[in-house]
């Protein structure tokens, strides 16, 4: 009997049980906050002031205000002002997130493909440069980047931001490189016998094989870009 209790106590305090309890606590806090936030969004200001925790006394459709009335005044680079509403903000967010993420997922894939399938001196140099550059803890480039964007007249534009992100220097490059190196050469050889050129082999045969990796990288890029929007918000003052 004592042994069973001791075993039970040991199991209760095992690593898995402790992590489980911490996770449950995390989930509980998360859902309390989210549920409270959603409920609050249906209250009037007066209701929120006197009835912070309860259900809304009268359910308000505050989203009406957001969609129709909510506008923010922003200053353009030339000093002029304009109003930006929710739809423009959403559209810009989508353009920014999708555009930048596509660029930062596609360039590592493209360069990874070239370095993996076309082995030459330049490919070797490219791989070495990317690996070395990734290791360098440089963090002072942001202001010089802003200066360059202004000089190139692409400051405050989504196109400029996408151009900035269209580089292969990231961890994703190594993922694509390893993936393309793992694809047997026979695919290309068979395609060449059938008369396929370099473009067709790349776009119709090899890239479709990398689709799931590309999609994962793209999703991760959207999430990271989403979190780091603060960093890129200087060059997008009016957007």
């Amino acid at each position: 009997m004592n042994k069973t209790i001791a075993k039970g106590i040991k199991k209760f305090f095992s690593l898995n049980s402790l992590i489980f309890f911490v996770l449950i606590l995390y989930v509980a806090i998360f859902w309390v906050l989210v549920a409270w936030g959603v409920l609050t969004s249906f209250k009037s200001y007066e209701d929120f002031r006197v009835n912070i925790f309860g259900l809304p006394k009268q359910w308000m459709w505050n989203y009406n205000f957001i969609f129709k009335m909510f506008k923010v005044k922003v200053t353009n680079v030339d000093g002029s002002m304009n109003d930006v509403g929710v739809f423009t903000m959403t559209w810009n967010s989508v353009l920014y997130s999708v555009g930048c993420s596509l660029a930062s997922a596609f360039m590592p894939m493209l360069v990874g493909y070239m370095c993996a399938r076309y082995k030459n001196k330049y490919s070797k140099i490219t791989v070495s440069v990317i690996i070395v550059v990734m290791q360098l803890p440089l963090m002072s480039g942001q202001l010089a980047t802003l200066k360059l964007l202004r000089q190139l007249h692409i400051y405050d534009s989504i196109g400029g931001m996408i151009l900035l992100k269209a580089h292969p220097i990231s961890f994703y490059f190594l993922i694509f490189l390893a993936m393309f190196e793992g694809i047997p050469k026979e695919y290309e050889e068979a395609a060449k016998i059938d008369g396929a050129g370099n473009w067709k082999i790349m776009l119709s045969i090899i890239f479709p094989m990398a689709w799931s990796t590309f999609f994962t990288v793209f999703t991760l890029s959207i999430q990271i870009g989403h979190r780091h929007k603060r960093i890129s918000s200087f060059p997008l003052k009016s957007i």
Partner: protein
Amino acid sequence: MIKNNTNGKQKKYDKGFYALIMLFPTIQFLIFYLYVHVDSFLLPFQSYDLAGGTMSWTGSNISQALEILFSQNILHGFGLNLMSYGISVCISMPLSLLFSFYIYKKNFGSKFFRIILYLPSIISSLVFVIIYQNFVERALPSLVMSITGEQIQGLIENMETRIPTIIVFGIFMSFGSNVILYTNAMLGISDEMVDAAKLDGAVGFKEFIYVTMPTIWRTFSVFFINGLMMIFSSDLNAYAFFGQLAPENVQTYGYYIFVQTKKAVNIGDYPVLAAMSLMISLVVIPLVLFVRWALKKYGPSEE
């Protein structure tokens, strides 16, 4: 002969194709990486006369930057950055690793927890900031009032609880992608190794320490070093909470440089800020290189 000609043509075509595809990435690298980083070392020594449209070289930006970095109110940010990194290493990282271990072992509810831990990373952090801020500023004091009858200040309004409250938020939001990447690294551990360790009695915490950690040490090192690289650019979410008007006691180096850059009107405002960034880089670079070397040399071996 004909075959040689065809091979020669094919090689030429391959070269042309290669050059065409690699042209854009090369130009992008030369302009947006090489030029930018060379310029970032030059910018702190430049001064712009915007009216005259001229640029001159000066050393005064460095002394001005040092003066700002060591001024009393900003120096406090240095301590905050160190504290925030310490908390991330001591709390967020171990928790992320343990959560990942739980998910990797496919324990009860692991799929559900994986999604929940990832959710704060998908939803904009500003949404959570607004909910959290209103909760700790309004809801919590109201709850305390209704339970104890005592009136308390909001946790962010109160100077003593402001920093811990913001730090707790940072920990809460920090798990998403870390857990996914750690879990993926753990999934690479071979079953044979786990079985062999089990026979030697390495289960539960022992398995985590002696099997899992050594195997994912490389991934762990990347996160550790990445955190160190960002040590002085972190703003503790102060911008999300306070915008450009954060109280002095939550301003970090990262926050200060960010806000000043945001306020900058033209290129002429950049050199002093670039000098500050350069000074910080000069501290961070040797630190990162040393830690990377130490992690490689003294980290656990997979054998």
